[in-house]
């Protein structure tokens, strides 16, 4: 397989000799920027930042399948909802500890994603987008369904409680949750980065760029596509579980089709097929609607849509693409 023999050399030449040293300053800056709100931000602002980190994880999941693998999903809100409900039901009905819900939600959503990804294999581009879109529209209805009300609480939803900081750490609930979320986000982002830099990551992108050629090179497109969908759904589900814990409440109305659209907008604005992009996307979807409401109370949605269209025309690479261009200019 040609790609296997060439890939390592390309990667090696692209990497600076000692990346740890070269980026040490940047890493310190990011670390301090992430820890700073812990001491300076008030409780509500901290909650918003926690939400931004959660959305960043969810958008990263979407970006893996849509940005890197080219399978457009407009229904990732569905996996977010499933993750949130798995967490809420485990905590409320079974009294399980909050930390155990996170891997469970990821696994359950991974399996659901595999199930959805399987028929989706037959669909190109727009078909898949519309099918996942109809999934997103159907989810609130399914959650409200009387037959499963015993578990989901129907229209009422389920209440859960924020965990206290463990080991007697001197942190408030919000501070602890912020730290936990950021730590998990960093872990997931690192994993995604490594996945995309690996042989499998190359294959995932090759299938997006030229499926037929990729298959001719020996890549199992069907298996990789469904697995990518499953991993992507799992990551988004993990974010959903975190959101249930952070918001302390799940209900069908929190997971309307607008959620899926929000994730999609966050992905485009942050940067399609970029690992760091979703972090900006998460910040965008949490803070920009607030700002938009200040500009015009009546129509934050209009501004949201206009920003989306403007990004597609002016900055198709999103914020991450802009930063990359600026960095390239500085390094010249």
């Amino acid at each position, binding site marked *: 397989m040609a790609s296997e023999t060439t890939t390592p050399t390309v990667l090696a030449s692209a990497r600076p000799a000692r990346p740890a040293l070269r980026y040490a300053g940047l890493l310190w800056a990011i670390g301090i920027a992430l820890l700073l709100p812990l001491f300076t931000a008030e409780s509500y602002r901290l909650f918003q930042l926690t939400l931004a980190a959660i959305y960043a994880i969810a958008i990263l999941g979407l970006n893996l399948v849509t940005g890197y693998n080219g399978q457009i999903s407009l229904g990732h809100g569905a996996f977010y909802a499933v993750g949130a409900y798995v967490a809420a039901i485990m905590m409320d009905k079974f009294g399980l500890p909050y930390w155990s819900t996170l891997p469970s939600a990821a696994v359950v959503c991974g399996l659901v994603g595999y199930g959805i990804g399987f028929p989706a294999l037959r669909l190109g581009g727009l078909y898949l*987008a519309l099918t996942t879109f109809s999934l997103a529209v159907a989810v609130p209805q399914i959650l409200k369904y009387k037959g499963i009300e015993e578990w989901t609480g129907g229209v009422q939803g389920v209440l859960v409680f924020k965990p206290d900081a463990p080991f007697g750490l001197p942190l408030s609930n919000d501070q602890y949750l912020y730290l936990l979320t950021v730590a998990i986000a960093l872990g997931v982002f690192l994993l995604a980065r490594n996945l995309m830099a690996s042989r499998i990551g190359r294959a995932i992108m090759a299938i997006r760029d030229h499926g037929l050629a990729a298959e001719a090179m020996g890549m199992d497109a069907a298996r990789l596509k469904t697995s990518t969908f499953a991993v992507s759904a799992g990551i988004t589900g993990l974010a959903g579980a975190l959101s249930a814990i952070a918001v302390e409440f799940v209900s069908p109305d929190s997971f309307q089709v607008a959620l899926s*659209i929000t994730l999609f907008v966050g992905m485009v604005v942050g940067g399609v097929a970029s690992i760091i992009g979703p972090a900006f996307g998460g910040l965008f979807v949490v803070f920009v609607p607030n700002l938009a409401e200040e500009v015009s109370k009546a129509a934050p949605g209009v501004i*949201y849509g206009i920003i989306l*269209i403007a990004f*597609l025309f002016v900055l198709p690479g999103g914020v991450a693409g802009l930063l990359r261009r600026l960095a390239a200019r500085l390094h010249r």
Partner: protein
Amino acid sequence: MNGFLHQVIAGIATGGIYASVALALVMIYQATHHVNFAQGEMATFSTYIALTLVQAGWPFWLAFVATIGISFCIGVLIERVLMRPMDKAPVLTHVGLFIGLVLVISNLTGWVFDYTVKPFPSPFHDGPLFGGLVTGHELGSTAVTLVVLGLVYLFFRYTRLGLAMRAAAFNPASARLVGVRVGWMLALGWGLASGIGAIAGIMVAPVVFLEPNMMLGILLYAFAGALLGGIDNPGGAVIGGFAVGVIENLGGTYVVGTELKLTMALVIIIGVLLVRPAGLFGRVVLSRV
């Protein structure tokens, strides 16, 4: 038995609405290979225009025709301003544009015409006909749908412009060589689809009442209908739309209940894609590589 028959007929009446939206979807798909997500929102916006005109004292049918004209212009405008510059962009960009359109148009509708649910007048004799089997509006809207579908068929089959549009969609390069203005044909396709969407909106509004998210479910049913009939076959899309209307009504009454009606659209979509992705009347596309 009478109840069953009534459900089937009511299904055909709503199916007519799905059929016209499905037809609009298929027309844009044929012309551009896009599925316009904003079709429903555009139709809702048009319906509000119609309501405004009617409330301003215009006769219903004059408002009807004027609304179709305005919608046509909006469709052409969107194609020219938003879609045309992104002609060669990847599919993801197109989906992003559609989502942006959905956001802008649906919120603009709520902003301009406010979010309250409004009744919409029906131009037809109101009340049951033929011993309660069918209402005047059901009969009238089905008739309007059939007339529109017939006109669209005649337009594509027998006029020079229709032929040029088909040529532009089928083989843009050759069409351009024989002098068809391919770009304008696409814009025209958008305009026509937008006009047909407006008709569907006006016909469905008296049944479901007018609110900014009126068409969201309808778009999904229409997509299910288009897929069922075959996304590249206008006639198939119409039959699929009617079929989905009947399935939805019977299923909602006898099987799952009204709460899970939208889920049925999802089930139909996934079912068709699993069993027969080309649809009932679609061609299986083979591509040479």
